[in-house]
């Protein structure tokens, strides 16, 4: 009787132990599945992050390039202004002595255009005339790079 009970106890314990082990395996399996899902999600997030970083770098490069282009066209405007004063050893002072009225007219015209350039630089919207100017006679000669986007120097 004693041995029987002892054997019964062992069998019951073994069954319970096996059951508990199976349950543990199931729990582990569930955790592993959950981990796999999390890892996949993390990989996907990392991929998105890398793509976003790539896009950001491209945007930064583009912005730098555009800024450099802008600086060089503005520099050209400044060089053109210098040429207007000194082209072919031109002496504006002597010209003004010879023809004060015409130089006064030219100076006032250029001054008005330069004033408009400051307005545009401060954010004033371009007029339709300025936007559509393509000929030299139509442009703001003081700052075509910012006043006349359609004008291509020829």
């Amino acid at each position, binding site marked *: 009787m004693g041995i029987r009970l002892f054997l019964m106890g062992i069998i019951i*314990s073994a069954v*319970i132990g096996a059951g*508990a082990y199976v349950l543990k395996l199931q729990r582990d399996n569930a955790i592993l599945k959950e981990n796999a899902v999390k890892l996949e999600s993390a990989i996907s997030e990392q991929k998105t992050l890398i793509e976003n970083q790539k896009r*950001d770098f491209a*945007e*930064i490069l583009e*912005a730098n390039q*555009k*800024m450099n282009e*802008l*600086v060089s066209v*503005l*520099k050209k*405007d*400044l060089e053109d*202004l*210098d040429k207007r*004063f000194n082209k072919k050893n031109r*002496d*504006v*002072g002597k010209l*003004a*002595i010879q023809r*004060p*009225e015409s*130089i*006064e007219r030219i*100076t*006032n015209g*250029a*001054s*008005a255009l*330069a*004033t408009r*350039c*400051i*307005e545009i*630089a*401060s*954010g*004033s*919207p371009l007029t339709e005339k300025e936007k559509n100017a393509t000929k030299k006679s139509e442009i703001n000669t*003081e*700052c075509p790079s*910012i006043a006349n986007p359609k004008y291509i120097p020829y």
Partner: protein
Amino acid sequence: MLILSIFLTSCSGVKKLEIFKQEVEREKLNLNTPTPLELENLKWIIITSNNAEEVFKKLEEKGIDPVLWGLTDKDFELLAKNFARIRNQLVVTNNLLDKYKEYYEGDLEKKNEK
């Protein structure tokens, strides 16, 4: 007894602590764009030793005080170049601001779309 203890340990009342992290976007600065300048046109007068009297006479006739602030041709050239440099700096600074806004707030817009 053994079964009871197994069942009791399985029914533990302590739950897993879950912490949620949610990114809250920073508020946009949204400062108003400065009003573009509206400048007055000024009139330049060319005065030489030959036309000085005539120029002052015309001013008096128009009821304007016969006094002028003078610049030599070289200084006028420098003034024109200085203004052009200030203008260029204004363009570059405004462009820089636009690019920053486009870069940061452009991204936020895309996130909002998602």
